[in-house]
């Protein structure tokens, strides 16, 4: 928001600039601890992985466009569909939402100057980058993971997959999990401790509630995946027998551990999308969210209930009727908080005065696809039906409507929505709308026929199919849809890229309700000249408060312009509690991540002593880290 400031206020903001501006150039980016820069690095890194995952998807669809395809060999197809799944889940959707959107926006939304632990924040990015490159190094070497993104044993055991493809998967996910664990701790502490004075929990934006729920879900879900992957690598590399039935092990232990993580993962993926939707809708319908407290509770409840439904991925493994019925019922209960949010979004739009600009179109697309994905989800919670369509393209259709339609659409809408905030420029609206319709149509044409082809019996993961199965036309339509979808996505990226250089420099053409809109676009390094105070969940619509912030700036109040600092508040009521000194640039996070990358690379190659050496180096970097006594 552009405002005119007096010479005295300018003097204060200059002081803040001197305190908070980081080094320029590559070194500045390598050593940054600024949440905005880290968010931008997450954004471009995850976008690159999205591109890679997209190319893999197009290869899959090109292979399946007709019967007896020869675009990929069976071995290459296995690697491509596995990497597609791993990339989209672990290297795109989660880091894009939590890493890019969360990092950039949460401190701004809560009126803080940075994350609670800025150096840990940088570390989580560099570890994420290391883990992504680690897994893609496997693809470049021709040893990419090849047993599917959920990597069932015994298929993934040493006996049936003797190369080191699976080892890249196992170690890669443990490595990636470290990044997500660090990030989730950082988000929780940031939301608990750094909210602006007055932003009690009931005044916190719904976006932050969604990210808080995601952070807790990650914290409690990831250990299960890490343990599963640890057991897998101990089996494969050191001859242990966790999953080997011949020695008393249990192959189903993998499935249980994986899905104890894997189903909360679905909500980890989709909850940030809910948060984005609750940010975009009020800005474009010009009214407050309907059922604000219920939506906040529903967001948390979805994350909580997500831990009690994992067996619905395993209805065909032979559990007792009682067990499967329990998990089917638990799965259906999640419909309740999901529906609360759905009705709240729809009611807010219907009772407001909607302005159908591009971000809102993407949210409406998300609602449509969330309903389709949700309804097909109810069908697969029905045990007999699930047993019929298990491992068929029906399941692919269901989760792509949920993950692409319901999780990625809000990401795309969010990219448009916050583009003016991040860049200070405005995107091309008509091109935005065209890109929406291309993406919307492409998604439907690609994934909807998969329901039918799945019911007709086409199994997932087969690298080809014969011409006489009745699947040919549907597969052809799906592949054409995927090209259309790719065109829509490319148009979005092109629109934003061109607008970054040529878009008009004006204020955003909409009025957001949360605090990130209270500062300039792009925000200054210190985020807010005056630490804002908050009296409602819609602080930007409390004009008096924002006017008072400007007056305080003129008087030099609430500036923290004497040191690199941010206020900490109490967890529940957000009362000012102390002033924290925050670290600025630091070389230690990338160095620690580099050492950890060395550890995992050596583990894959089974050079255990060298791996131990890298671990020691990592420990030494932590000693350097603690030379300065600031927040971690």
């Amino acid at each position, binding site marked *: 928001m552009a405002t005119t400031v007096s010479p005295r206020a300018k003097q204060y903001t200059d002081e803040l600039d001197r305190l908070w501006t980081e080094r320029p150039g590559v070194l500045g980016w390598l050593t940054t601890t600024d949440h905005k820069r880290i968010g931008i690095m997450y954004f471009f890194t995850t976008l690159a992985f999205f591109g890679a995952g997209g190319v893999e998807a197009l290869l899959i669809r090109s292979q399946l466009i007709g019967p007896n395809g020869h675009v990929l060999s069976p071995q290459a197809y296995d690697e491509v569909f596995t990497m597609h799944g791993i990339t989209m889940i672990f290297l795109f959707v989660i880091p894009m939402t939590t890493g890019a959107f969360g990092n950039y926006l949460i401190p701004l939304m809560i009126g803080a100057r940075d994350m609670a*632990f800025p150096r*840990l924040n940088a570390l989580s990015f560099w570890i994420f980058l290391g883990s992504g490159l680690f897994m893609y190094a496997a693809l470049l070497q021709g040893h990419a993971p090849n047993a599917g993104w959920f990597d069932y044993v015994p298929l993934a055991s040493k006996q049936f997959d003797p190369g080191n493809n699976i080892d890249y998967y196992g170690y890669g996910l443990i490595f990636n999990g470290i990044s997500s*664990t660090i990030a*989730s*701790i*950082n988000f*929780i*502490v940031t939301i*608990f*401790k*750094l909210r602006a004075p007055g932003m009690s929990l009931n005044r916190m934006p719904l976006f932050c509630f969604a990210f808080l729920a995601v952070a807790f879900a990650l*914290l*409690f879900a*990831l*250990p*299960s995946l890490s*343990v599963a992957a640890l*057991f897998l690598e*101990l089996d494969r590399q050191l*001859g*242990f*027998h*966790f999953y*080997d039935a011949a*020695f*008393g*092990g*249990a192959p189903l*232990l993998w499935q*249980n*551990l994986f899905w*104890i993580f894997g189903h909360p993962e679905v909500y980890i993926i989709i909850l940030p999308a809910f948060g984005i939707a609750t940010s975009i809708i009020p800005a474009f319908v010009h009214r407050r969210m309907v059922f604000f407290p219920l939506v906040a509770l529903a967001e948390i409840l979805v994350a909580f209930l997500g831990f009690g439904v994992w067996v619905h991925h395993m209805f065909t493994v032979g559990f007792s009727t009682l067990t499967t019925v329990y998990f089917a019922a638990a799965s259906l209960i999640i419909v309740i908080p999901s529906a609360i949010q759905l009705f709240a979004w729809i009611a807010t739009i219907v009772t407001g005065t909607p302005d159908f600009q591009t971000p809102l179109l993407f949210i409406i697309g998300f609602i449509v696809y969330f309903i389709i994905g949700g309804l097909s989800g109810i069908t697969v919670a029905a045990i007999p039906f699930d047993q019929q369509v298990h491992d068929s393209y029906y399941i692919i259709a269901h989760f792509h409507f949920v993950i692409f339609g319901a999780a990625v659409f809000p990401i795309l809408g969010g990219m448009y929505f916050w583009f003016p905030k991040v860049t200070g420029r405005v995107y091309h609206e008509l091109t935005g709308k065209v890109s929406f319709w291309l993406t919307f149509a492409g998604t439907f044409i690609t994934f909807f026929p998969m329901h039918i082809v799945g019911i007709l019996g086409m199994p997932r993961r087969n690298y080809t199919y014969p011409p006489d199965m009745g699947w040919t036309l549907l597969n052809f339509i799906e592949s054409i849809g995927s090209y259309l979808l790719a065109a829509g996505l490319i148009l979005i990226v092109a629109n934003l890229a061109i607008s970054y250089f040529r878009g008009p420099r004006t204020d955003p053409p909409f009025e957001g309700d949360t605090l990130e809109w209270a500062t300039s676009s792009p925000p200054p390094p210190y985020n807010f000249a005056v*630490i804002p105070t908050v009296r409602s969940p819609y602080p930007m619509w409390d004009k008096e408060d924002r006017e008072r912030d400007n007056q305080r700036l003129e008087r*030099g*109040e*609430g*500036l*923290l*312009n*004497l*040191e690199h*600092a941010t*206020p*900490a*508040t*109490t*967890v529940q009521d957000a*009362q*000012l*509690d*102390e*002033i*924290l*000194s925050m670290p600025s640039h630091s070389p230690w996070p990338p160095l620690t991540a580099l050492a950890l990358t060395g550890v995992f690379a050596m583990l894959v190659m089974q050079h255990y002593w060298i791996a131990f050496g890298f671990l020691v180096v990592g*420990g030494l970097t932590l000693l350097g880290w*603690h030379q300065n*006594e*600031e*927040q*971690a």
Partner: protein
Amino acid sequence: MTDAAGQVPRSAHAERSRAAAAVDRSRAAQPSGWWGMALFLCSEATLFGTLIGSYFYLNFGSHRWPPAGITPPEIPGPAISTAVLVGTVPLMVLGAAAARRGRRWSAVRWIVAAFVIQIAYLATQVLLIRHDLLDFTPQGTAYGSIYFTLLFADHAHVLLGLLLNGAVLYKVARHGLTNYWLIGVRGLALYWYVVVGITVAVLFTVLSPSL
């Protein structure tokens, strides 16, 4: 803040023990560092919950546990050494309490006392594991795999705690009990409370065939 500097403590300015203790007393909520450690420990406790759950999953799926040829674990050695480790919890409580009162050397003494016992505990455990390895290995059966993995994971956390002890003691003794290291002492104490709790849970798990 310039308008609130008089009322709100600037934690980084607390570079001496008494000033750090005053900041600690004035806080209405736990500091960020404490929250960070608490959440990290939630994650670690979940990790051990998963490991222990896996132990019983494999146990309940087998006809005989431990398998034929492996004697059930002996109770006295592990139980006594774990009881000794539990005895370090009051020492860490006293260390953290001393730090919060600004008594730097008192805190150091309590933590050093706990440190010595914790080292002795780990040394004993190494000897017990060596003894176990003469009887069976992690590569022999799924029982051996989960038994040793549980113990190694627990001992790795004890070892990490010892390294943290060393780092915190060095910093507090050399540079003083600043606000940063006071929170460090509190985080360290919290770490040990949870690791000791985890160790007790692991002990009951691995001894369950003999109970």
